[in-house]
């Protein structure tokens, strides 16, 4: 399964980068969302994919069954998802405020610090 996911990750990265290179600020936001998904999936896949054995320990047991999914990348990605949301909200509002002031959807018109 990892090879297939590798292509999915590559595709997501390509789409994200392409959108982030556009001049339209709205497209930049879309690119950001795609980028965070791509990065999360990259970390998740890199640790190896396992079906149907979540990192949970059965009641009364000391250790999970062998071959359990790696919990560490899951913990990393979990916080990353939530933080990505916070950062996205920040970026969206920043862009919105910039738009209110500059009244332009073109990043090229936002390159001066004077308004």
């Amino acid at each position, binding site marked *: 399964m990892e090879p297939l996911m590798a292509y999915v990750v590559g595709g997501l990265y390509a789409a994200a980068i392409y959108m982030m290179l556009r001049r339209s600020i709205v497209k930049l936001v879309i690119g950001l969302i795609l980028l965070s998904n791509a990065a999360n999936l990259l970390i998740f896949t890199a640790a190896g994919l396992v079906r149907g054995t*979540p990192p*949970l320990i059965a*009641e009364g047991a000391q250790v999970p069954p062998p071959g359990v999914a790696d919990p560490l990348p899951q913990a990393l990605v*979990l*916080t990353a998802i*939530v933080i990505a*949301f*916070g950062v996205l*909200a920040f970026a969206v*509002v920043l862009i919105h405020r910039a738009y209110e002031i500059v009244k332009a959807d073109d990043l090229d018109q936002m390159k001066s610090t004077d308004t």
Partner: protein
Amino acid sequence: MTSMPSLILSTAARVLLPLLVLFSIFLLLRGHDLPGGGFIGGLVGASGYTLYLFAFDSSAARAALRMDPRTMVGLGLVIATLSGVIGTFVRGEPFFTSQWWEVYVPIFGEMKLSSPLIFDLGVYMVVLGSVMTIVLTLAEAEE
């Protein structure tokens, strides 16, 4: 929101909000043993209040929250940080050494109370508070 809220949505939201909040607390408490925890619980709670916000308006959602979400963020951070120093003060152990107590609670019997649980409560409050700060601020800007 500005448009007339639908009756079905508002009724559903009224019923769903307490359920979702309860569910979020349930998720928070069981998180140490089963899927759930502060992040997920906080997000579930936030979606409940957001639903309420869409069914009614931001002031109603603010009232339903009872606490200013910004205060909740601050309180959550304080709780999370303090949970790390319990061990430092009580036993002179390093920051964030986990502490466990067996507590007897009527009806539920023996319960595990621990500093990681308190920490998770802090996480829950920060997540809920942050998301609600963002959503409420944006919704109020809209109005």
